[in-house]
Structures are given as structure tokens and as C-alpha cells.
């Protein structure tokens, strides 16, 4: 847990910067008052906290560049922040640094239908791009669960995905152009309306760099044509293995759903209690499959998926194509996390990835872990791409329970690594998992990451202590989240 005592004063080194920052961002664009700065002490992962030395709220790329140049000249660290919804403490402020918040840069500069792209400032909310594109029959494909809040700039930093990334990919697959402010304060344009920018694919490497390579100030994203038809299917099984077989056979049959989600018995039970989602009685596993595309293709695939679910042992399959019916199917899935929060006083959400073929084995091992430790684990996950979100449930009033839950949660990540997976599928590394990076990558791999980072940021001032392990950070125990996480409740939001 990273937590600094509430800073009452801006550190002296920063105080000297404040007048210059005010010249750059204007009086109301610089926050030095302690109580104001404190409201920025964490992002969506609140057990990591640190009060920023000073907060700036630039409104233009030039202001961002000037602020960063000043930081670079004075050797002061800076941390970029969008909407502050991240789940890996990637926007954790630096106590002696400048927090650069893009929340006032939220113009949709253009919806360019002819070129099928949108040009936006980094503070624009993900869903607002889709809202602006929708009248033209387009949408912005990456759909992280916090999409109504999270900013496109933050999505770029985290390479955000979403439930539908199985078919449509992540942010990196949809960014065509970036204006960035480098850690030395230069404003550089990469790509634009024309895809395939010449030279090294810096856009590809910048997306997902968690704010360690600079700040995106203008983003050109692809717009995707809204599909002609979307169908959602719910299939119930008497065992997780049977559900897993259905997933495998759908994939083997050459069907690529836009989303394929699975819940186990504990998760279903919780969802029923919370939102009465009315999933088939006696289901030990449910599979939610969404298909989209040209109507004729969707119809053909739907018949195939229904048949395959039946062959895998499904005892009931429902399909829905209207928005309301589809929402009813998704309701249980989307509320699962909140529901689990209601049946347990505290829980840890893990985010790990395993190869899809390893899913049955890993799920069995998770069950064993749960049984041997006495800690309950509910499983809600993206079956299509092997992204697990085990919920490790415990009672934080019971002595030692948090530690045992933390052990189980860590052991699940070990399982992911052991099976050739990843320590994070979508939440990012940030501060939260920086210390776990050496479990996934060797020293040479990490050193190479660091070489790359330093090619952008030789002085190490851009979002320091994130993404890569540092001695200062590591060795501390990662924290535990209590209560219902809000990315998910009441069926409107979901958490992955």
C-alpha cells in the first residue's frame, strides 16, 4: 500500500515552479491548495494514495508541452491523469511532482465520416466518441466497462480493451494518429488521418505505455461501422467443463463472436440474489455469447453456436436480438461483480490471462486452491480470450483472512504465469503490479523495456515508479479492496 501523509504544503522545489505554471495554465489552471490537491490523491484503485505536489489543468497541447518542458528543465517528475478511473494506480500522483490532468481537454475536434475516424482531445470520454459518431452509423469499438467516464487519453495510456475486444481488438488497434508531448516537452505529431505512418511504429509502442513516454494531446481514432445485426445468446450448463467444451467447439468451428463470457455457480448465485437475473435454474455455468455483423452471417453463426452449445451439454439456451432483451441477458453478467460484493464483506479482483486451452485446468486448480485455503473464489471471465477475473472473497473482520485471500489471489496469478499467460489482460501494471513484472519477464526483457523507456525519457521524470519494478516500490504488500466495487452495479456497469 502506498500512502503518503497528507501533504499540507507544496514541496519547496515545486513552489518555485508555481508562478511559471500559472503563467502557462492561468490562475485557475494550477492547484496548490492542500485540500484541493488531496482530491487527486488516487485514481480508481484507492488503496494506493499520494497527494500530488501540484496539480495543473491545461486546456491546450501547448500548455501541456510548456508544463512538461518546465518539469524537464527542472528535473521535476510529472504524472499524467485522465478521468482517474484506472485500476492499477497508473495515475498515482507523485508527492514531489506535477500532476497533469487532461480533464479540461475534452473537445471532439472532428468526426470525419469520409475518413472513418474521429479526432479528439485526450480528456474526451470514450463513450462520447461513440455518441458523436452514432448519428452517422458509426461507433468507437473499444468499450472498457467504465466507458462513460474513462477518457480516450487514459485508454491510450492503458491500451484499454472491453467485453468486445475478442473480435474488435484493443485501443492500439484503433489509434491512427497521436500528437504527444514527450518527456522533454516537445510536441510531436505521429500519424494522423492516414494510417500506416512511415518509420518505426511509435504509435503502437506509445499506446499502452501507461504515461511513461509522455502525454497524448490529440488522438485520431478509427470509427467502426455499426453492425447490421447483433444477437446475444445465453446458454446454461451443469458443469464448468461442459461450458468450457462449448467455448472450445465454438472457436474450433471457426466462429468469432464479438464477446464470449462465462460465470460459475457462485457468481450466478450472487447475481440471482442481487438482480434476479432469472438465469436457468440449476446452472453450474452460464455462457453469454454475442454475435454481430451482416444479418445473414449472424443468423448462420447463431444456428451453429446454438447447435454447438447443445452438443456440449447445454440444458437451456436463450437468444435475444432486441436491445432490451439483450440487456436482460447481460444484466446478470454485468451485475455479477457488485453481486459478489454483496455476499462478501470484502474481496479482491484479480486480472490475469491464460491461454484459452488452459482454462479448464486453471479453473480446476483455482477450485483446489479455494478448497485447500477455505477462501471462496467466484469466477466471472472473458472465456473467449482467457482473461480471468477471479473474485477472492473474504471477511475482513476475521483475523488473517485478508492475508490468506491475498495469498490465493497471488497464487492465481502464478497459475496464469505458469500456463504461459499474463499478469494483466486489461487493468495494466501501474504501481499495483510493477513488482510482479519480474515473474513474467526475465531481467533482460525488463532491461530492454527500460532501454526503450529511457530513449523517450532519459531523466526518468515521466510517471516514475510505474510499469517497471523499482526497489523502492517492491517488497510492499499489495492492497486489498473492500466492499462492492462500483465499476459494476445494478447491471449498468460491469467489471472485468
Amino acid at each position: 500500500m502506498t500512502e503518503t501523509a497528507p501533504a499540507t504544503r507544496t514541496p519547496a522545489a515545486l513552489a518555485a515552479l508555481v508562478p511559471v505554471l500559472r503563467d502557462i495554465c492561468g490562475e485557475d489552471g494550477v492547484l496548490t491548495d492542500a485540500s484541493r490537491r488531496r482530491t487527486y490523491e488516487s485514481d480508481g484503485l484507492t488503496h494506493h494514495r499520494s497527494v500530488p505536489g501540484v496539480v495543473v489543468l491545461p486546456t491546450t497541447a501547448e500548455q501541456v508541452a510548456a508544463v512538461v518542458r518546465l518539469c524537464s528543465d527542472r528535473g521535476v517528475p510529472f504524472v499524467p491523469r485522465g478521468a482517474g478511473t484506472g485500476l492499477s494506480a497508473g495515475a498515482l500522483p507523485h508527492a514531489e511532482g506535477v500532476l497533469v490532468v487532461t480533464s479540461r481537454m475534452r473537445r471532439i475536434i472532428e468526426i470525419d465520416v469520409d475518413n472513418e475516424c474521429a479526432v479528439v482531445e485526450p480528456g474526451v470520454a470514450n463513450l462520447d466518441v461513440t455518441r458523436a459518431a452514432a448519428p452517422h452509423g458509426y461507433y468507437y469499438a473499444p468499450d472498457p466497462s467504465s466507458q462513460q467516464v474513462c477518457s480516450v487519453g487514459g485508454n491510450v495510456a492503458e491500451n484499454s480493451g472491453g467485453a468486445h475486444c475478442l473480435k474488435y481488438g484493443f485501443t492500439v488497434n484503433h489509434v491512427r494518429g497521436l500528437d504527444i508531448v514527450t518527456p522533454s516537452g516537445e510536441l510531436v505529431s505521429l500519424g494522423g488521418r492516414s494510417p500506416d505512418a512511415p518509420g518505426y511504429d511509435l504509435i503502437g509502442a506509445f499506446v499502452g505505455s501507461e504515461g511513461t513516454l509522455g502525454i497524448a494531446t490529440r488522438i485520431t481514432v478509427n470509427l467502426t461501422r455499426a453492425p447490421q445485426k447483433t444477437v446475444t445468446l445465453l446458454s446454461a450448463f451443469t458443469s464448468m467443463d461442459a461450458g468450457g467444451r462449448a467455448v472450445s467447439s465454438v472457436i474450433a468451428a471457426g466462429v468469432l463472436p464479438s464477446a464470449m463470457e462465462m460465470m460459475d455457480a457462485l457468481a450466478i448465485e450472487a447475481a440471482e440474489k442481487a438482480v434476479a437475473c432469472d438465469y436457468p435454474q440449476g446452472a453450474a455455468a452460464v455462457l453469454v455469447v454475442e454475435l454481430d455483423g451482416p444479418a445473414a452471417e449472424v443468423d448462420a453463426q447463431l444456428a451453429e453456436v446454438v447447435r454447438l452449445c447443445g452438443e456440449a451439454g447445454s440444458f437451456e439456451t436463450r437468444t435475444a436480438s432486441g436491445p432490451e432483451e439483450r440487456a436482460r441477458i447481460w444484466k446478470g453478467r454485468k451485475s455479477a461483480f457488485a453481486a459478489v460484493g454483496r455476499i462478501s464483506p470484502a474481496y479482491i479482483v484479480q486480472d490475469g490471462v491464460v491461454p484459452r486451452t488452459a482454462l479448464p485446468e486453471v479453473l480446476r486448480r483455482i477450485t483446489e486452491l479455494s478448497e485447500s485455503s477455505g477462501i471462496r473464489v467466484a469466477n466471472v471471465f472473458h472465456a473467449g480470450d482467457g482473461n480471468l477475473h477471479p473474485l477472492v472473497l473474504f471477511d475482513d473482520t476475521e483475523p488473517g483472512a485478508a492475508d490468506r485471500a491475498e495469498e490465493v489471489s497471488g497464487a492465481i496469478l502464478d497459475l496464469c504465469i505458469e500456463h504461459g499467460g499474463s499478469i494483466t489482460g486489461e487493468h495494466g501494471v501501474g504501481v499495483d503490479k510493477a513488482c510482479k513484472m519480474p515473474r513474467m519477464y526475465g531481467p533482460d526483457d525488463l532491461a530492454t523495456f527500460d532501454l526503450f523507456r529511457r530513449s523517450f525519457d532519459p531523466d526518468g521524470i515521466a510517471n516514475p515508479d510505474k510499469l517497471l519494478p523499482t526497489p523502492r516500490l517492491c517488497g510492499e504488500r499489495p492492497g486489498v479492496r473492500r466492499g462492492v466495487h462500483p465499476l459494476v452495479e445494478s447491471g449498468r456497469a460491469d467489471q472485468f
Partner: protein
Amino acid sequence: MHVTDQPPEAPRERDQVFGDLLNDCVHCGFCLPTCPTNVLWGQEMDSPRGRIHLMTQMHTEDVLTETAVGHFDNCLGCLACVSSCPSGVAYDALIEHTRNRVEREHERPRGERVLRGAIFSLFPYRRRLRLMRGPLRAYGATGASSLVRRSGLLERISPALAAMERIAPPLSSPPPPLPPLVPAVGRARARVGMLVGCVQGAFFPEVNTATARVLAMEGCDVVVPRTQGCCGALSGHSGRSEESAAFARRLVEVFERARVDRVVVNSAGCGSSMKHFDRTLAEAGADDAWVRRARDMSAKVVDLTEFLVDLGPRAERHPLPLHTAYHDACHLSHGQGITQAPRALLAGIPGLRVSDLPDKEVCCGSAGVYNLLKPDAARELGDRKGRDVASTGADALVSGNPGCALQIASAMERAGRRVAVTHTARVLDASLRGLTVDQLLGR
């Protein structure tokens, strides 16, 4: 009735409840996009998530800084954050408690104190408000109390009044006050009380007339107690809990005496407040018996639209060929969770087309007396809403709250895009009576 004087809930217990409510927030940020001040200024301290953080600072460290008060004051109390919160954080209770503490502990600068004093000497009183209108305006201005004149309130209020003169010209003689009982047309299906309201009653008496007529035509005996006063919402939203509680007590007594099944309200802000009179009294330290009486009363309070939808239509709807845009008053949609009922009623009128506004969750900036206290922010929000209304191309804007009507009409006046503004009750009334569009819009 025998009432025991129970000791009021101890402040320490209330503090603990406050602390627990604060802990419900897990910082996800889902409240940000619909918060009007976040829309305006894009900074954490002027978002619900940031304000809750400031409340936590206030609560855990027991200090109330000038800075924090400023950000609490900036909150419009529109409650959009309550609608968007996946964790069910009771921001309404949080901000009300916080405002009470601010009013108790914080010494405001003199000018601000005078302005607030003037507002609350004027608004909760229908008769004083009526003096501000039309031919009486000049007289009203000169005749107003010296407090009102000194405060600068008249300057702040006059643009809205001027707009109102144009959208709802005062009748040469004000409509006669509603009789104490408007009998049902045909067999009575319910006996309801009706709130007249201060702003509604003073500035939009025709809305009240329409409301009573619609209720009667739908088969209700409508009781309109003469002695009813303000519901106390404006005071309560500004942290004046004692004043608010006094108004609440009076209404509880008045409507207890009226012996009605339901208390129908046509003003969103009043309805929202009246639905939690128990909390208002508890916050002001009332005893348990009073809190119980208030809770019983609150249980009877319904918005006109939800009541009519529940009741089901009986009177014939005549066609009204008109393109309208419906504006969700915050205290109807966020405060009471009512969004479908008014749309359903309007959709039931043949020939009437209803458009939604873009960003319909975001407040228009009226927010009780906010437009008087924070005119700049309110104006900017009003201008945004005006642009959104214009973007629909509708000929009339329908809303369920008098403050919103004034705010949006004056914003559209400023932008030179005049639009007729009217109340759901008047549209229904016109349809039930078979009036023409021109008659409805006074053209």
C-alpha cells in the same frame, strides 16, 4: 394527539452515519460526466467524487476550510450523481448534512449573507413573490423590503423575470385562486391534496389551474388547502435546516387535516423535497414522533405525472399537433427517479411528438436559487441547455419544474432563439379540453 418529546438524535450518531455514507464511495468516477460543475470546470473538487473527498477531509479532520465551502457551494444539488452512482452513494443526504454544517459553522462574508437573507425572505412566500410580477413589478421593486433592495437581488432576478414576462405574460387580473375543493368530473377515483407551491403559485398560476383541472377530469376530488405554505425545499437545499423543518411541519399538519389519499405535486423541486420530510426533520433534530408523522406524509407525496400514469387515463385525449422537447427537471429525474411517466403521458396525446435533449441528464443551471447565488455558472449551464433545446428543432419545451422553465426560457432569449416553454400539466390540460396549439401556447 399525544406527542412525547424524545431527545433529538445525538449529533455524534448523525456524524457516524455520515461517515458510513462517505465510505460507500469507492472513487470510480461514474458520477463525473453528468455533474454540471464537472461539465463546466473539469476539476476534481467540483465533481461529486471530489466533493465527497472534501467531505471526508472535513469529517475525519473536523475542519471546514474556506476552500471546501466554496466547492460545496458550487454544487447545484441536481442529484445527477445519485442517478449515475453504481454504488448507491447517498450524495443527497451527504450534501444536505454538509450544507447544514456549513451554515452552522461557517461565517460568510457580509455581502453574501445579505444576499442569502434577501432570497430567503422572498422566495418561500408566494404573496411577496407575486409582487415581483408584471404591472406590479415597479411597485414591487420599490415596495420591496430594504433588505431585498440592498442585496442586489433585484438585479440578479430581473433577467429571469423579464424572460418570464415574455413567455408567460401576466394576466390583467390574476386567475382566481383555486377553490378549496375541485370536485371530480364523473365518478371520483381518488381524493388528492394538491400543493400550490411558491414559485409555481406566484409565477405560473395557470399551471396550477391546469393541474387541478386535469386531476378533476381524470376523476379526482382535488383538495387545495388554503393555509399551505412553502415546502421548505429552497431553504433545505441551502443548509437552512431549521427554516426548512418549520415549513415542513406546517405542510405535514395542513395535509394531515385534509385527509387525502395522495398529495400531488407539480413542481419537481417541491416533490423531491417532500418525499423525504422525515430526513429533513431528523436533520433538524426533530423528535421521533414528528419524524414518523413526516414519513407518513412523505409516503403520500407523488408527482403529478407518476400519479396520472398509475391512475391510468380515463378522459379523452384530443390531438395536439406539436413538436415538443421534454426536459428532465433534475429533481424529477434524479431526485425522484421519474423519467418515463411524463414521456408516457405526452406520448399518449395524439399528434404530439416528443424529442429528447442531448445530455438530458445534465442540469439546466436553475437548481432552486442557484441561479441567484452563482449567476455565472448558472448562465453558462443555461446557455448549454438552450443550445441543446435548439438542436432538437422542437417548437415547445415541456418541463415539470417552474425554475427550469424560467432558466431555459431566459437562456434562449439571450441567444435569440425563442421557444415556447410550458408545463406537462398544461399540455395535458390542452389535450383533455381539446384546445388548439395556438391556445396552448398563447399565440
